[in-house]
Protein backbone atom coordinates (compact mmCIF):
# COMPACT_ATOMS: atom_id res chain seq x y z
CA UNK A 1 0.00 0.00 0.00
CA UNK A 2 1.64 3.23 -1.05
CA UNK A 3 1.46 6.54 0.73
CA UNK A 4 -1.20 7.98 -1.59
CA UNK A 5 -3.61 5.14 -0.85
CA UNK A 6 -3.00 5.55 2.87
CA UNK A 7 -3.72 9.22 2.56
CA UNK A 8 -6.91 8.55 0.64
CA UNK A 9 -8.13 6.21 3.38
CA UNK A 10 -7.02 8.62 6.07
CA UNK A 11 -8.86 11.43 4.35
CA UNK A 12 -12.03 9.40 3.96
CA UNK A 13 -12.24 8.12 7.51
CA UNK A 14 -11.24 11.37 9.16
CA UNK A 15 -13.81 13.32 7.14
CA UNK A 16 -16.49 10.77 7.91
CA UNK A 17 -15.56 10.97 11.59
CA UNK A 18 -15.72 14.76 11.67
CA UNK A 19 -19.04 14.81 9.86
CA UNK A 20 -20.48 12.31 12.36
CA UNK A 21 -19.18 14.45 15.23
CA UNK A 22 -20.66 17.63 13.74
CA UNK A 23 -24.08 16.11 13.25
CA UNK A 24 -23.86 14.49 16.67
CA UNK A 25 -23.18 17.96 18.03
CA UNK A 26 -26.21 19.41 16.28
CA UNK A 27 -28.33 16.59 17.69
CA UNK A 28 -26.86 17.27 21.12
CA UNK A 29 -27.66 20.98 20.92
CA UNK A 30 -31.30 20.32 20.24
CA UNK A 31 -31.84 17.35 22.51
CA UNK A 32 -30.11 18.98 25.46
CA UNK A 33 -32.44 21.91 25.16
CA UNK A 34 -35.53 19.74 24.72
CA UNK A 35 -34.70 17.64 27.75
CA UNK A 36 -34.10 20.80 29.66
CA UNK A 37 -30.61 19.79 30.79
CA UNK A 38 -29.13 22.85 29.20
CA UNK A 39 -30.28 26.10 27.68
CA UNK A 40 -27.76 27.21 25.12
CA UNK A 41 -29.49 30.44 24.29
CA UNK A 42 -28.85 31.84 27.73
CA UNK A 43 -25.13 31.99 27.00
CA UNK A 44 -25.90 34.88 24.70
CA UNK A 45 -26.33 36.91 27.88
CA UNK A 46 -22.67 36.54 28.80
CA UNK A 47 -22.04 39.52 26.56
CA UNK A 48 -24.97 41.53 27.85
CA UNK A 49 -24.27 41.12 31.52
CA UNK A 50 -20.57 41.66 31.56
CA UNK A 51 -20.05 44.27 34.21
CA UNK A 52 -17.59 43.21 36.81
CA UNK A 53 -20.36 43.33 39.41
CA UNK A 54 -22.81 41.21 37.38
CA UNK A 55 -23.58 37.73 38.53
CA UNK A 56 -21.87 35.20 36.20
CA UNK A 57 -24.37 33.37 34.03
CA UNK A 58 -22.79 30.11 35.08
CA UNK A 59 -20.39 30.47 37.94
CA UNK A 60 -17.35 28.30 38.45
CA UNK A 61 -18.47 26.65 41.65
CA UNK A 62 -16.41 25.41 44.50
CA UNK A 63 -17.61 21.85 43.86
CA UNK A 64 -16.18 22.00 40.32
CA UNK A 65 -12.81 22.99 41.63
CA UNK A 66 -12.79 20.01 43.93
CA UNK A 67 -13.75 17.63 41.14
CA UNK A 68 -10.78 18.78 39.10
Amino acid at each position, binding site marked *: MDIATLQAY*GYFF*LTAFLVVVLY*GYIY*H*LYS*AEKKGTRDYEKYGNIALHDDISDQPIEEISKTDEIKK
Partner: protein
Amino acid sequence: MFHWLEKNPFFFAVAVFVVIAFAGLIEILPNFAQASRPVIGTKPYTTLELAGRHVYIKNSCNACHSQLVRPFKSETDRYGHYSLSGEYAYDRPFLWGSKRTGPDLMRVGNYRTTDWHENHMKDPAAVVPGSIMPAYGWMFKNKADVDTAYAEQVTVNKVFKTPYNAELPMADGSKVKVALADSVEAARASALEEAKVIAADMKDQDVKDAVAKGEIPEIVALIAYLNSLK
Protein backbone atom coordinates in the same frame (compact mmCIF):
# COMPACT_ATOMS: atom_id res chain seq x y z
CA MET B 1 -21.48 14.54 25.85
CA PHE B 2 -20.45 17.77 24.19
CA HIS B 3 -20.96 20.40 26.80
CA TRP B 4 -17.72 19.75 28.63
CA LEU B 5 -15.94 21.03 25.53
CA GLU B 6 -17.48 24.46 25.90
CA LYS B 7 -16.26 24.86 29.42
CA ASN B 8 -12.89 23.24 29.16
CA PRO B 9 -10.52 25.56 27.34
CA PHE B 10 -7.77 22.99 27.00
CA PHE B 11 -9.81 20.32 25.28
CA PHE B 12 -11.63 22.98 23.34
CA ALA B 13 -8.32 24.25 21.96
CA VAL B 14 -7.27 20.72 21.08
CA ALA B 15 -10.52 20.14 19.23
CA VAL B 16 -10.16 23.38 17.28
CA PHE B 17 -6.61 22.49 16.39
CA VAL B 18 -7.55 19.03 15.12
CA VAL B 19 -10.27 20.46 12.96
CA ILE B 20 -8.13 23.19 11.42
CA ALA B 21 -4.99 21.10 11.00
CA PHE B 22 -6.89 18.39 9.20
CA ALA B 23 -7.14 20.07 5.81
CA GLY B 24 -3.45 20.89 5.80
CA LEU B 25 -2.51 17.31 6.47
CA ILE B 26 -4.57 16.04 3.60
CA GLU B 27 -3.89 18.77 1.07
CA ILE B 28 -0.31 19.65 1.63
CA LEU B 29 1.63 16.63 2.70
CA PRO B 30 0.87 14.42 -0.31
CA ASN B 31 2.66 15.11 -3.57
CA PHE B 32 5.47 16.83 -1.77
CA ALA B 33 8.17 14.57 -3.07
CA GLN B 34 6.48 14.28 -6.43
CA ALA B 35 6.01 17.96 -7.17
CA SER B 36 9.63 18.84 -6.53
CA ARG B 37 11.08 16.48 -9.10
CA PRO B 38 12.69 18.64 -11.79
CA VAL B 39 11.73 18.20 -15.44
CA ILE B 40 14.39 17.62 -18.07
CA GLY B 41 16.05 20.90 -18.96
CA THR B 42 15.69 22.52 -15.54
CA LYS B 43 18.91 23.60 -13.91
CA PRO B 44 19.85 25.40 -10.72
CA TYR B 45 20.67 29.11 -10.81
CA THR B 46 24.20 30.39 -11.25
CA THR B 47 25.60 32.82 -8.71
CA LEU B 48 24.82 35.90 -10.80
CA GLU B 49 21.35 34.66 -11.72
CA LEU B 50 20.60 34.03 -8.06
CA ALA B 51 21.87 37.50 -7.15
CA GLY B 52 19.50 38.81 -9.83
CA ARG B 53 16.67 36.80 -8.36
CA HIS B 54 17.37 38.52 -5.05
CA VAL B 55 17.13 41.90 -6.78
CA TYR B 56 13.80 40.77 -8.24
CA ILE B 57 12.58 39.83 -4.76
CA LYS B 58 14.04 42.88 -3.07
CA ASN B 59 11.98 45.12 -5.33
CA SER B 60 8.87 42.92 -5.12
CA CYS B 61 8.65 42.48 -8.88
CA ASN B 62 6.33 39.59 -8.02
CA ALA B 63 3.77 42.12 -6.75
CA CYS B 64 2.90 42.94 -10.36
CA HIS B 65 4.36 40.15 -12.46
CA SER B 66 3.34 36.52 -12.29
CA GLN B 67 5.54 33.59 -13.24
CA LEU B 68 2.89 31.06 -14.04
CA VAL B 69 1.53 30.31 -17.51
CA ARG B 70 -1.88 28.72 -17.16
CA PRO B 71 -3.00 26.08 -19.66
CA PHE B 72 -5.23 28.30 -21.81
CA LYS B 73 -4.75 28.93 -25.49
CA SER B 74 -4.72 32.69 -24.90
CA GLU B 75 -1.89 32.38 -22.39
CA THR B 76 0.26 29.94 -24.33
CA ASP B 77 -0.11 32.16 -27.40
CA ARG B 78 1.13 35.11 -25.41
CA TYR B 79 3.73 33.63 -23.09
CA GLY B 80 4.71 30.21 -24.46
CA HIS B 81 4.30 26.67 -23.13
CA TYR B 82 2.17 26.29 -19.99
CA SER B 83 4.07 25.85 -16.74
CA LEU B 84 5.07 22.43 -15.48
CA SER B 85 5.52 21.61 -11.83
CA GLY B 86 9.07 20.33 -12.20
CA GLU B 87 10.24 23.56 -13.82
CA TYR B 88 10.06 25.20 -10.42
CA ALA B 89 12.12 22.54 -8.65
CA TYR B 90 14.91 24.99 -7.77
CA ASP B 91 12.71 28.01 -7.02
CA ARG B 92 13.02 28.87 -3.32
CA PRO B 93 10.76 30.71 -2.75
CA PHE B 94 8.32 30.30 -5.64
CA LEU B 95 7.55 33.54 -7.49
CA TRP B 96 4.20 32.82 -9.09
CA GLY B 97 2.73 36.09 -7.88
CA SER B 98 -0.98 36.70 -7.50
CA LYS B 99 -1.60 39.70 -9.73
CA ARG B 100 -0.75 40.60 -13.31
CA THR B 101 -0.53 44.34 -13.31
CA GLY B 102 2.23 43.68 -15.82
CA PRO B 103 2.66 40.61 -18.05
CA ASP B 104 3.79 37.16 -17.00
CA LEU B 105 7.56 36.66 -16.87
CA MET B 106 7.82 32.88 -16.62
CA ARG B 107 9.48 32.64 -20.07
CA VAL B 108 10.50 36.23 -20.66
CA GLY B 109 14.01 35.07 -21.59
CA ASN B 110 12.50 33.64 -24.76
CA TYR B 111 11.24 36.89 -26.16
CA ARG B 112 13.15 39.79 -24.60
CA THR B 113 16.86 40.46 -24.55
CA THR B 114 19.47 42.34 -22.56
CA ASP B 115 19.25 45.62 -24.45
CA TRP B 116 15.47 45.70 -24.22
CA HIS B 117 15.55 45.12 -20.47
CA GLU B 118 18.14 47.84 -20.07
CA ASN B 119 16.02 50.40 -21.90
CA HIS B 120 12.92 49.22 -20.11
CA MET B 121 14.25 49.32 -16.58
CA LYS B 122 15.65 52.78 -17.15
CA ASP B 123 12.43 54.22 -18.52
CA PRO B 124 9.59 51.77 -19.13
CA ALA B 125 7.41 54.23 -21.02
CA ALA B 126 10.17 54.80 -23.58
CA VAL B 127 9.88 51.25 -24.88
CA VAL B 128 6.28 50.59 -23.88
CA PRO B 129 4.26 53.79 -24.43
CA GLY B 130 1.50 53.97 -21.85
CA SER B 131 3.34 51.73 -19.41
CA ILE B 132 2.53 52.37 -15.76
CA MET B 133 5.63 50.62 -14.50
CA PRO B 134 7.95 52.87 -12.50
CA ALA B 135 11.58 53.36 -13.57
CA TYR B 136 14.26 51.51 -11.64
CA GLY B 137 17.16 53.90 -11.97
CA TRP B 138 18.81 52.90 -8.70
CA MET B 139 19.47 49.42 -10.02
CA PHE B 140 22.10 50.95 -12.28
CA LYS B 141 23.95 52.27 -9.23
CA ASN B 142 23.38 49.80 -6.38
CA LYS B 143 25.72 46.85 -6.30
CA ALA B 144 24.36 43.31 -6.41
CA ASP B 145 24.94 41.16 -3.35
CA VAL B 146 26.91 38.28 -4.83
CA ASP B 147 28.07 37.00 -1.45
CA THR B 148 24.55 36.33 -0.22
CA ALA B 149 23.70 34.62 -3.49
CA TYR B 150 26.71 32.38 -3.04
CA ALA B 151 25.74 31.68 0.57
CA GLU B 152 22.33 30.60 -0.68
CA GLN B 153 23.86 28.33 -3.31
CA VAL B 154 25.97 26.65 -0.64
CA THR B 155 22.93 26.31 1.61
CA VAL B 156 20.60 24.75 -0.93
CA ASN B 157 23.38 22.46 -2.08
CA LYS B 158 24.09 21.32 1.44
CA VAL B 159 20.61 21.18 2.90
CA PHE B 160 18.36 20.40 -0.04
CA LYS B 161 20.86 18.57 -2.26
CA THR B 162 20.33 20.99 -5.14
CA PRO B 163 22.50 19.42 -7.85
CA TYR B 164 25.38 21.81 -8.40
CA ASN B 165 28.50 20.35 -10.03
CA ALA B 166 26.41 17.52 -11.44
CA GLU B 167 25.66 16.55 -15.01
CA LEU B 168 22.03 17.45 -15.75
CA PRO B 169 20.18 16.23 -18.85
CA MET B 170 18.86 18.94 -21.17
CA ALA B 171 15.93 18.71 -23.57
CA ASP B 172 18.20 18.38 -26.62
CA GLY B 173 20.01 15.39 -25.15
CA SER B 174 23.10 17.29 -24.05
CA LYS B 175 24.39 17.50 -20.50
CA VAL B 176 24.92 20.70 -18.58
CA LYS B 177 26.81 21.27 -15.37
CA VAL B 178 26.18 24.30 -13.17
CA ALA B 179 29.33 24.87 -11.16
CA LEU B 180 29.36 25.80 -7.50
CA ALA B 181 32.44 27.81 -6.59
CA ASP B 182 34.74 26.50 -3.87
CA SER B 183 35.05 29.78 -2.07
CA VAL B 184 33.34 33.12 -1.95
CA GLU B 185 36.26 34.69 -3.84
CA ALA B 186 35.88 32.15 -6.65
CA ALA B 187 32.14 32.81 -6.69
CA ARG B 188 32.73 36.55 -7.05
CA ALA B 189 35.11 35.91 -9.93
CA SER B 190 32.74 33.62 -11.79
CA ALA B 191 29.84 36.03 -11.26
CA LEU B 192 32.00 38.79 -12.72
CA GLU B 193 32.68 36.64 -15.79
CA GLU B 194 28.94 36.21 -16.29
CA ALA B 195 28.41 39.92 -15.70
CA LYS B 196 30.92 40.84 -18.41
CA VAL B 197 28.92 38.91 -21.00
CA ILE B 198 25.76 40.78 -20.03
CA ALA B 199 27.48 44.17 -19.81
CA ALA B 200 28.90 43.73 -23.32
CA ASP B 201 25.33 43.87 -24.65
CA MET B 202 24.45 46.93 -22.60
CA LYS B 203 24.73 50.59 -23.52
CA ASP B 204 24.99 52.39 -20.19
CA GLN B 205 28.58 53.57 -19.87
CA ASP B 206 28.51 53.71 -16.06
CA VAL B 207 27.46 50.07 -15.91
CA LYS B 208 30.17 49.05 -18.36
CA ASP B 209 32.76 50.98 -16.34
CA ALA B 210 31.61 49.42 -13.10
CA VAL B 211 31.85 45.92 -14.49
CA ALA B 212 35.27 46.68 -15.94
CA LYS B 213 36.31 47.71 -12.44
CA GLY B 214 35.07 44.42 -11.06
CA GLU B 215 31.78 45.64 -9.59
CA ILE B 216 28.39 44.24 -10.50
CA PRO B 217 25.46 46.67 -10.55
CA GLU B 218 22.07 45.22 -9.60
CA ILE B 219 20.73 45.72 -13.11
CA VAL B 220 23.31 43.32 -14.56
CA ALA B 221 22.38 40.60 -12.10
CA LEU B 222 18.68 41.20 -12.69
CA ILE B 223 19.10 40.91 -16.45
CA ALA B 224 21.08 37.70 -16.01
CA TYR B 225 18.15 36.34 -14.03
CA LEU B 226 15.51 37.55 -16.51
CA ASN B 227 17.46 36.05 -19.40
CA SER B 228 17.54 32.73 -17.58
CA LEU B 229 13.73 32.57 -17.43
CA LYS B 230 12.87 30.31 -20.33
